[in-house]
Protein backbone atom coordinates (compact mmCIF):
# COMPACT_ATOMS: atom_id res chain seq x y z
CA UNK A 1 0.00 0.00 0.00
CA UNK A 2 1.44 3.34 -0.95
CA UNK A 3 1.81 5.78 1.90
CA UNK A 4 -0.26 8.97 2.01
CA UNK A 5 2.08 11.95 2.20
CA UNK A 6 1.14 14.89 4.43
CA UNK A 7 2.46 18.41 3.99
CA UNK A 8 2.19 21.70 5.88
CA UNK A 9 0.44 24.43 3.88
CA UNK A 10 -0.41 27.04 6.51
CA UNK A 11 1.06 28.48 9.71
CA UNK A 12 -0.41 30.69 12.41
CA UNK A 13 0.72 31.83 15.83
CA UNK A 14 0.35 34.40 18.53
CA UNK A 15 3.19 34.21 21.04
CA UNK A 16 5.22 36.18 23.56
CA UNK A 17 7.51 37.09 20.65
CA UNK A 18 4.92 38.40 18.22
CA UNK A 19 1.29 38.49 17.21
CA UNK A 20 1.85 36.35 14.14
CA UNK A 21 4.30 33.86 12.63
CA UNK A 22 6.44 36.41 10.79
CA UNK A 23 7.06 38.63 13.81
CA UNK A 24 7.63 35.61 16.06
CA UNK A 25 10.16 34.16 13.64
CA UNK A 26 11.96 37.49 13.22
CA UNK A 27 12.24 37.79 17.00
CA UNK A 28 13.61 34.26 17.27
CA UNK A 29 16.25 34.84 14.63
CA UNK A 30 17.23 38.07 16.38
CA UNK A 31 17.56 36.21 19.68
CA UNK A 32 15.01 38.32 21.52
CA UNK A 33 13.47 37.19 24.81
CA UNK A 34 9.72 37.34 25.32
CA UNK A 35 10.05 37.05 29.09
CA UNK A 36 9.27 39.97 31.37
CA UNK A 37 8.34 40.89 34.92
CA UNK A 38 4.76 40.24 36.00
CA UNK A 39 3.38 43.63 36.99
CA UNK A 40 -0.04 42.43 38.17
CA UNK A 41 -0.75 43.07 41.83
CA UNK A 42 -1.20 39.36 42.55
CA UNK A 43 2.33 38.61 41.42
CA UNK A 44 3.83 40.28 44.47
CA UNK A 45 3.06 37.35 46.78
CA UNK A 46 4.50 34.69 44.45
CA UNK A 47 7.99 33.20 44.52
CA UNK A 48 7.95 33.46 40.70
CA UNK A 49 7.25 36.95 39.34
CA UNK A 50 8.25 36.54 35.69
CA UNK A 51 6.51 35.08 32.64
CA UNK A 52 6.38 35.29 28.86
CA UNK A 53 3.11 37.11 28.21
CA UNK A 54 1.59 37.54 24.76
CA UNK A 55 3.21 40.25 22.65
CA UNK A 56 -0.18 41.26 21.22
CA UNK A 57 -3.26 41.48 23.44
CA UNK A 58 -6.12 39.39 21.96
CA UNK A 59 -8.43 42.32 22.77
CA UNK A 60 -6.78 44.26 19.96
CA UNK A 61 -7.60 41.47 17.49
CA UNK A 62 -11.03 40.12 18.49
CA UNK A 63 -14.07 42.21 19.33
CA UNK A 64 -15.15 42.77 22.91
CA UNK A 65 -18.42 40.85 22.81
CA UNK A 66 -16.78 37.80 21.27
CA UNK A 67 -14.03 37.85 23.90
CA UNK A 68 -16.65 37.75 26.67
CA UNK A 69 -17.54 34.22 25.57
CA UNK A 70 -13.99 32.93 25.13
CA UNK A 71 -11.40 31.74 27.56
CA UNK A 72 -8.08 33.36 26.66
CA UNK A 73 -6.80 29.96 25.44
CA UNK A 74 -9.78 29.78 23.06
CA UNK A 75 -9.36 33.35 21.84
CA UNK A 76 -5.72 32.87 20.91
CA UNK A 77 -6.36 29.48 19.30
CA UNK A 78 -8.95 31.19 17.09
CA UNK A 79 -6.53 34.00 16.22
CA UNK A 80 -3.74 31.57 15.29
CA UNK A 81 -6.09 29.21 13.44
CA UNK A 82 -7.56 32.00 11.31
CA UNK A 83 -4.01 33.12 10.43
CA UNK A 84 -3.04 29.58 9.44
CA UNK A 85 -6.25 29.11 7.49
CA UNK A 86 -5.72 32.36 5.56
CA UNK A 87 -2.07 31.44 4.99
CA UNK A 88 -3.06 28.08 3.50
CA UNK A 89 -5.30 29.65 0.86
CA UNK A 90 -7.91 26.98 1.57
CA UNK A 91 -10.71 29.45 2.20
CA UNK A 92 -11.27 29.80 -1.53
CA UNK A 93 -10.31 26.25 -2.48
CA UNK A 94 -13.77 24.72 -2.30
CA UNK A 95 -12.79 22.19 0.37
CA UNK A 96 -15.63 19.86 1.40
CA UNK A 97 -16.26 20.60 5.12
CA UNK A 98 -16.72 16.86 5.69
CA UNK A 99 -13.03 16.44 4.73
CA UNK A 100 -11.80 19.12 7.16
CA UNK A 101 -10.77 18.12 10.69
CA UNK A 102 -9.40 19.91 13.73
CA UNK A 103 -6.89 18.66 16.31
CA UNK A 104 -6.05 21.34 18.86
CA UNK A 105 -5.17 20.68 22.46
CA UNK A 106 -4.29 22.51 25.61
CA UNK A 107 -2.22 21.32 28.55
CA UNK A 108 -4.35 22.88 31.26
CA UNK A 109 -7.43 24.26 29.47
CA UNK A 110 -9.73 26.97 30.77
CA UNK A 111 -8.34 27.13 34.30
CA UNK A 112 -8.38 30.92 34.37
CA UNK A 113 -12.11 30.94 33.56
CA UNK A 114 -12.73 28.31 36.24
CA UNK A 115 -10.92 30.35 38.85
CA UNK A 116 -12.50 33.67 37.83
CA UNK A 117 -16.01 32.20 37.91
CA UNK A 118 -15.29 30.58 41.27
CA UNK A 119 -14.43 34.04 42.57
CA UNK A 120 -17.82 35.26 41.31
CA UNK A 121 -19.59 32.25 42.86
CA UNK A 122 -17.99 32.93 46.23
CA UNK A 123 -18.59 36.69 46.13
CA UNK A 124 -22.02 36.95 44.50
CA UNK A 125 -23.65 33.52 44.42
CA UNK A 126 -24.52 30.99 41.73
CA UNK A 127 -26.92 33.20 39.76
CA UNK A 128 -24.06 35.53 38.85
CA UNK A 129 -21.92 32.74 37.35
CA UNK A 130 -21.68 33.33 33.60
CA UNK A 131 -23.75 31.06 31.35
CA UNK A 132 -20.65 30.92 29.14
CA UNK A 133 -18.59 29.27 31.92
CA UNK A 134 -18.78 25.67 30.73
CA UNK A 135 -17.96 26.23 27.04
CA UNK A 136 -15.16 28.54 28.19
CA UNK A 137 -13.49 26.11 30.57
CA UNK A 138 -14.02 22.81 28.78
CA UNK A 139 -10.70 21.38 27.53
CA UNK A 140 -12.12 20.80 24.04
CA UNK A 141 -13.25 24.43 23.85
CA UNK A 142 -10.39 25.76 21.67
CA UNK A 143 -10.71 22.91 19.16
CA UNK A 144 -14.49 23.22 19.15
CA UNK A 145 -14.41 26.97 18.49
CA UNK A 146 -11.94 26.57 15.63
CA UNK A 147 -14.01 23.73 14.20
CA UNK A 148 -17.13 25.88 14.46
CA UNK A 149 -15.63 28.93 12.77
CA UNK A 150 -14.00 26.92 9.97
CA UNK A 151 -17.10 24.68 9.69
CA UNK A 152 -14.98 21.56 10.06
CA UNK A 153 -17.07 18.38 9.95
CA UNK A 154 -14.53 15.55 9.75
CA UNK A 155 -14.08 15.45 13.52
CA UNK A 156 -12.78 17.87 16.12
CA UNK A 157 -10.27 16.44 18.57
CA UNK A 158 -8.48 17.78 21.61
CA UNK A 159 -5.68 15.67 23.00
CA UNK A 160 -4.16 16.50 26.36
CA UNK A 161 -0.64 15.35 27.18
CA UNK A 162 0.65 18.27 29.23
CA UNK A 163 3.69 19.84 27.57
CA UNK A 164 3.61 17.36 24.69
CA UNK A 165 0.05 18.35 23.73
CA UNK A 166 0.83 20.61 20.76
CA UNK A 167 3.05 17.99 19.16
CA UNK A 168 0.65 15.14 19.88
CA UNK A 169 -2.21 17.12 18.33
CA UNK A 170 -0.13 17.50 15.17
CA UNK A 171 0.67 13.77 15.24
CA UNK A 172 -3.04 13.00 15.52
CA UNK A 173 -3.68 15.24 12.52
CA UNK A 174 -1.14 13.21 10.57
CA UNK A 175 -2.94 10.01 11.58
CA UNK A 176 -6.33 11.40 10.55
CA UNK A 177 -5.12 12.21 7.05
CA UNK A 178 -3.20 8.96 6.66
CA UNK A 179 -6.25 6.99 7.79
CA UNK A 180 -8.34 8.71 5.15
CA UNK A 181 -10.62 10.46 7.64
CA UNK A 182 -9.73 13.96 6.42
CA UNK A 183 -7.88 15.73 3.61
CA UNK A 184 -7.01 18.75 5.73
CA UNK A 185 -6.51 19.04 9.49
CA UNK A 186 -6.01 22.30 11.38
CA UNK A 187 -3.72 21.20 14.19
CA UNK A 188 -1.75 22.61 17.09
CA UNK A 189 -1.91 23.79 20.66
CA UNK A 190 -2.92 26.68 22.86
CA UNK A 191 -2.25 27.73 26.44
CA UNK A 192 -3.05 30.76 28.57
CA UNK A 193 -2.65 30.14 32.30
CA UNK A 194 -0.60 33.08 33.53
CA UNK A 195 -2.53 33.25 36.78
CA UNK A 196 -1.37 32.95 40.40
CA UNK A 197 -2.74 29.44 40.97
CA UNK A 198 -0.97 27.57 38.13
CA UNK A 199 2.18 29.57 38.84
CA UNK A 200 1.99 28.72 42.54
CA UNK A 201 1.45 25.05 41.64
CA UNK A 202 4.43 24.83 39.32
CA UNK A 203 6.52 26.90 41.75
CA UNK A 204 5.64 24.50 44.58
CA UNK A 205 7.05 21.71 42.44
CA UNK A 206 10.25 23.77 42.26
CA UNK A 207 9.94 23.52 38.48
CA UNK A 208 10.11 27.24 37.68
CA UNK A 209 12.92 29.74 37.45
CA UNK A 210 12.98 32.31 40.23
CA UNK A 211 15.42 34.60 38.44
CA UNK A 212 12.96 37.42 39.07
CA UNK A 213 15.51 40.20 38.73
CA UNK A 214 16.64 39.15 35.25
CA UNK A 215 13.53 38.04 33.36
CA UNK A 216 15.16 37.95 29.94
CA UNK A 217 17.97 35.76 31.24
CA UNK A 218 15.74 33.36 33.18
CA UNK A 219 15.05 30.78 30.46
CA UNK A 220 18.48 29.31 29.79
CA UNK A 221 18.35 25.70 28.57
CA UNK A 222 21.59 23.71 29.02
CA UNK A 223 23.30 26.59 30.83
CA UNK A 224 24.89 25.80 34.19
CA UNK A 225 22.90 28.62 35.77
CA UNK A 226 19.47 27.29 34.73
CA UNK A 227 16.99 26.99 37.57
CA UNK A 228 13.68 25.99 35.99
CA UNK A 229 11.30 26.88 33.20
CA UNK A 230 9.59 30.20 32.53
CA UNK A 231 5.85 30.03 31.96
CA UNK A 232 4.68 31.36 28.59
CA UNK A 233 1.33 31.73 26.89
CA UNK A 234 0.37 31.53 23.26
CA UNK A 235 -0.92 29.39 20.44
CA UNK A 236 0.63 27.76 17.40
CA UNK A 237 -1.44 26.21 14.62
CA UNK A 238 -0.46 24.42 11.42
CA UNK A 239 -2.57 23.37 8.46
CA UNK A 240 -1.81 19.77 7.53
CA UNK A 241 -2.91 18.66 4.09
CA UNK A 242 -2.76 15.49 2.02
CA UNK A 243 0.14 16.12 -0.34
CA UNK A 244 -1.75 15.29 -3.54
CA UNK A 245 -4.62 17.52 -2.42
CA UNK A 246 -2.18 20.40 -1.92
CA UNK A 247 -0.49 19.70 -5.24
CA UNK A 248 -3.80 19.61 -7.11
CA UNK A 249 -4.67 23.13 -5.98
CA UNK A 250 -1.15 24.45 -6.48
CA UNK A 251 -0.72 25.23 -2.80
CA UNK A 252 2.44 26.71 -1.36
CA UNK A 253 4.03 23.92 0.72
CA UNK A 254 6.28 24.72 3.69
CA UNK A 255 7.50 21.22 4.48
CA UNK A 256 6.46 17.62 4.73
CA UNK A 257 5.33 16.18 8.06
CA UNK A 258 7.18 12.98 7.38
CA UNK A 259 6.66 11.04 10.58
CA UNK A 260 5.71 10.96 14.22
CA UNK A 261 6.63 8.84 17.22
CA UNK A 262 4.58 8.72 20.41
CA UNK A 263 5.55 6.76 23.50
CA UNK A 264 4.81 6.77 27.21
CA UNK A 265 7.35 6.22 29.95
CA UNK A 266 5.29 4.21 32.41
CA UNK A 267 7.81 5.37 34.96
CA UNK A 268 6.82 8.42 37.04
CA UNK A 269 4.03 10.99 37.00
CA UNK A 270 6.40 13.95 36.61
CA UNK A 271 10.04 12.81 36.45
CA UNK A 272 11.36 11.82 33.03
CA UNK A 273 12.91 8.38 32.77
CA UNK A 274 16.55 8.90 33.89
CA UNK A 275 18.02 7.40 30.73
CA UNK A 276 15.35 8.95 28.54
CA UNK A 277 14.14 5.51 27.46
CA UNK A 278 10.72 6.73 26.39
CA UNK A 279 12.19 9.69 24.52
CA UNK A 280 14.67 7.45 22.71
CA UNK A 281 11.87 5.15 21.58
CA UNK A 282 9.76 8.10 20.42
CA UNK A 283 12.61 9.51 18.34
CA UNK A 284 13.36 6.08 16.84
CA UNK A 285 9.72 5.58 15.94
CA UNK A 286 9.48 9.02 14.34
CA UNK A 287 12.57 8.41 12.22
CA UNK A 288 11.33 5.00 11.18
CA UNK A 289 7.87 6.38 10.43
CA UNK A 290 9.42 9.14 8.33
CA UNK A 291 11.57 6.61 6.51
CA UNK A 292 14.72 8.70 6.95
CA UNK A 293 18.12 7.73 8.35
CA UNK A 294 19.47 9.05 11.67
CA UNK A 295 22.17 10.82 9.73
CA UNK A 296 19.53 12.72 7.72
CA UNK A 297 18.34 14.54 10.86
CA UNK A 298 20.77 17.45 10.90
CA UNK A 299 18.79 19.66 13.27
CA UNK A 300 16.73 19.19 16.43
CA UNK A 301 14.41 21.72 17.98
CA UNK A 302 14.69 20.29 21.47
CA UNK A 303 12.13 20.20 24.24
CA UNK A 304 14.78 21.65 26.63
CA UNK A 305 12.79 23.74 29.09
CA UNK A 306 15.65 25.03 31.26
CA UNK A 307 15.12 22.58 34.12
CA UNK A 308 18.19 21.05 35.76
CA UNK A 309 17.30 17.38 35.14
CA UNK A 310 15.19 17.40 31.98
CA UNK A 311 17.61 19.28 29.76
CA UNK A 312 20.41 16.77 30.27
CA UNK A 313 18.17 13.70 30.02
CA UNK A 314 17.21 14.91 26.54
CA UNK A 315 20.86 15.27 25.52
CA UNK A 316 21.46 11.68 26.60
CA UNK A 317 18.42 10.54 24.63
CA UNK A 318 19.43 12.47 21.50
CA UNK A 319 22.96 11.07 21.55
CA UNK A 320 21.61 7.55 21.83
CA UNK A 321 18.81 7.95 19.30
CA UNK A 322 20.58 10.08 16.67
CA UNK A 323 24.33 10.26 17.33
CA UNK A 324 26.49 13.33 17.78
CA UNK A 325 25.92 15.13 14.48
CA UNK A 326 22.70 17.21 14.84
CA UNK A 327 22.75 20.94 15.55
CA UNK A 328 20.35 21.68 18.40
CA UNK A 329 18.42 24.64 19.54
CA UNK A 330 15.97 25.40 22.35
CA UNK A 331 13.65 28.21 21.33
CA UNK A 332 12.05 28.14 24.79
CA UNK A 333 15.06 30.24 25.78
CA UNK A 334 13.22 33.07 23.97
CA UNK A 335 9.51 32.16 24.02
CA UNK A 336 9.37 30.68 27.50
CA UNK A 337 7.47 27.42 27.94
CA UNK A 338 4.07 27.50 26.27
CA UNK A 339 3.09 24.14 27.85
CA UNK A 340 0.36 22.68 25.61
CA UNK A 341 1.26 25.05 22.78
CA UNK A 342 5.01 24.48 22.99
CA UNK A 343 5.18 21.53 20.60
CA UNK A 344 3.13 23.43 18.03
CA UNK A 345 5.15 26.64 18.21
CA UNK A 346 8.37 24.64 18.05
CA UNK A 347 7.06 22.68 15.07
CA UNK A 348 6.55 26.02 13.34
CA UNK A 349 10.12 27.04 14.20
CA UNK A 350 11.37 23.70 12.88
CA UNK A 351 9.44 24.10 9.63
CA UNK A 352 10.80 27.63 9.13
CA UNK A 353 14.34 26.42 9.90
CA UNK A 354 13.95 23.98 7.01
CA UNK A 355 12.51 26.68 4.75
CA UNK A 356 15.05 29.39 5.53
CA UNK A 357 18.14 27.24 6.17
CA UNK A 358 18.76 29.01 9.46
CA UNK A 359 18.65 27.64 13.02
CA UNK A 360 17.30 30.10 15.58
CA UNK A 361 19.55 30.58 18.59
CA UNK A 362 19.42 29.24 22.12
CA UNK A 363 19.92 32.45 24.06
CA UNK A 364 21.42 32.72 27.54
CA UNK A 365 23.74 29.79 26.89
CA UNK A 366 26.67 31.58 28.49
CA UNK A 367 28.19 28.77 30.52
CA UNK A 368 27.22 25.42 28.99
CA UNK A 369 26.59 22.46 31.29
CA UNK A 370 29.49 20.01 31.25
CA UNK A 371 27.06 17.37 30.04
CA UNK A 372 26.17 19.34 26.91
CA UNK A 373 28.07 17.22 24.43
CA UNK A 374 26.08 18.13 21.33
CA UNK A 375 26.42 21.19 19.11
CA UNK A 376 23.96 23.98 19.92
CA UNK A 377 23.32 27.17 17.96
CA UNK A 378 24.26 29.18 21.02
CA UNK A 379 23.28 32.84 21.35
CA UNK A 380 23.10 33.61 17.66
CA UNK A 381 21.29 32.16 14.68
CA UNK A 382 23.27 29.79 12.49
CA UNK A 383 23.03 29.24 8.75
CA UNK A 384 22.51 25.54 8.08
CA UNK A 385 21.06 23.54 5.24
CA UNK A 386 18.34 21.43 6.88
CA UNK A 387 16.70 18.85 4.62
CA UNK A 388 15.23 17.04 7.64
CA UNK A 389 14.70 17.99 11.27
CA UNK A 390 13.27 16.64 14.50
CA UNK A 391 11.04 18.37 17.05
CA UNK A 392 10.86 16.82 20.54
CA UNK A 393 8.14 17.37 23.13
CA UNK A 394 7.76 15.71 26.51
CA UNK A 395 5.05 16.14 29.10
CA UNK A 396 4.22 15.48 32.75
CA UNK A 397 2.64 12.06 32.82
CA UNK A 398 5.49 10.50 30.86
CA UNK A 399 4.36 11.58 27.38
CA UNK A 400 7.01 11.64 24.63
CA UNK A 401 6.31 12.92 21.14
CA UNK A 402 8.83 13.28 18.32
CA UNK A 403 7.95 14.78 14.94
CA UNK A 404 10.08 14.64 11.79
CA UNK A 405 9.71 17.38 9.19
CA UNK A 406 11.47 17.24 5.82
CA UNK A 407 11.98 19.59 2.93
CA UNK A 408 9.66 18.94 0.01
Amino acid at each position, binding site marked *: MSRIDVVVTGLGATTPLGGDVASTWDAMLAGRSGVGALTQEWAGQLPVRIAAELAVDPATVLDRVKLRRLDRSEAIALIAAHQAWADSGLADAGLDPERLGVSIGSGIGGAVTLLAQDDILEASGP*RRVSPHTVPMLMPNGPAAWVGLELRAQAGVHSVASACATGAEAIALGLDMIRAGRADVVVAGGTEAVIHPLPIAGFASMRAMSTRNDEPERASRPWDKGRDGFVLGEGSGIVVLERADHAAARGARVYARLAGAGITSDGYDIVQPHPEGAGAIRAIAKAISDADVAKSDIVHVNAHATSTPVGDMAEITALRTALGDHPVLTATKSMSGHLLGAAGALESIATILTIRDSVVPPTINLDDPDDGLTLDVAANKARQLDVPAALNNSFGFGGHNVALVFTRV
Partner: protein
Amino acid sequence: MTRDEITAGLAEILEEVAGVNPDDVAEGKSFTDDLDVDSLSMVEVVVAAEEKFGVKIPDNEVQNLKTVGDAVSYIEAQS
Protein backbone atom coordinates in the same frame (compact mmCIF):
# COMPACT_ATOMS: atom_id res chain seq x y z
CA MET B 1 -39.48 54.85 35.40
CA THR B 2 -41.02 55.40 31.97
CA ARG B 3 -41.18 52.75 29.27
CA ASP B 4 -38.62 54.73 27.26
CA GLU B 5 -36.24 54.78 30.21
CA ILE B 6 -36.59 51.02 30.67
CA THR B 7 -36.01 50.49 26.94
CA ALA B 8 -32.87 52.64 27.11
CA GLY B 9 -31.63 50.64 30.11
CA LEU B 10 -32.20 47.37 28.26
CA ALA B 11 -30.36 48.78 25.25
CA GLU B 12 -27.34 49.46 27.43
CA ILE B 13 -27.39 45.89 28.73
CA LEU B 14 -27.85 44.44 25.24
CA GLU B 15 -24.88 46.41 23.96
CA GLU B 16 -22.65 45.32 26.82
CA VAL B 17 -23.63 41.65 26.77
CA ALA B 18 -24.36 40.92 23.13
CA GLY B 19 -22.94 43.82 21.15
CA VAL B 20 -26.38 44.98 19.96
CA ASN B 21 -26.42 48.49 18.50
CA PRO B 22 -28.57 50.60 20.89
CA ASP B 23 -30.23 52.26 17.90
CA ASP B 24 -31.68 48.89 16.92
CA VAL B 25 -33.40 48.37 20.26
CA ALA B 26 -37.12 49.17 20.14
CA GLU B 27 -40.21 47.72 21.80
CA GLY B 28 -41.29 45.80 18.72
CA LYS B 29 -37.97 43.97 18.25
CA SER B 30 -37.65 40.26 19.01
CA PHE B 31 -34.59 39.37 21.09
CA THR B 32 -33.76 36.27 19.05
CA ASP B 33 -35.09 37.03 15.57
CA ASP B 34 -34.28 40.75 15.27
CA LEU B 35 -31.44 41.36 17.72
CA ASP B 36 -29.60 37.98 17.40
CA VAL B 37 -29.45 37.41 21.14
CA ASP B 38 -28.73 33.70 21.67
CA SER B 39 -29.99 31.67 24.63
CA LEU B 40 -26.86 32.02 26.76
CA SER B 41 -26.67 35.75 26.18
CA MET B 42 -30.38 36.05 27.10
CA VAL B 43 -29.51 34.57 30.49
CA GLU B 44 -26.91 37.30 30.92
CA VAL B 45 -29.40 39.97 29.86
CA VAL B 46 -31.95 38.75 32.41
CA VAL B 47 -29.47 38.71 35.29
CA ALA B 48 -28.18 42.17 34.35
CA ALA B 49 -31.74 43.50 34.06
CA GLU B 50 -32.65 42.14 37.51
CA GLU B 51 -29.70 44.00 38.93
CA LYS B 52 -30.30 47.22 37.01
CA PHE B 53 -34.03 47.51 37.64
CA GLY B 54 -34.24 45.82 41.03
CA VAL B 55 -36.74 43.17 39.89
CA LYS B 56 -36.94 39.39 39.87
CA ILE B 57 -37.41 37.66 36.52
CA PRO B 58 -37.97 33.94 37.16
CA ASP B 59 -36.76 31.48 34.51
CA ASN B 60 -40.33 30.45 33.66
CA GLU B 61 -41.15 34.08 32.82
CA VAL B 62 -38.16 34.50 30.52
CA GLN B 63 -39.72 32.35 27.79
CA ASN B 64 -42.65 34.80 27.62
CA LEU B 65 -40.34 37.76 27.01
CA LYS B 66 -40.11 37.47 23.24
CA THR B 67 -39.73 41.15 22.45
CA VAL B 68 -38.14 44.17 24.05
CA GLY B 69 -41.69 45.44 24.67
CA ASP B 70 -42.57 42.24 26.59
CA ALA B 71 -39.56 42.80 28.83
CA VAL B 72 -40.37 46.47 29.33
CA SER B 73 -43.95 45.60 30.35
CA TYR B 74 -42.76 42.92 32.77
CA ILE B 75 -40.20 45.21 34.38
CA GLU B 76 -42.71 48.10 34.52
CA ALA B 77 -45.25 45.88 36.30
CA GLN B 78 -42.70 44.60 38.82
CA SER B 79 -41.03 47.85 39.71
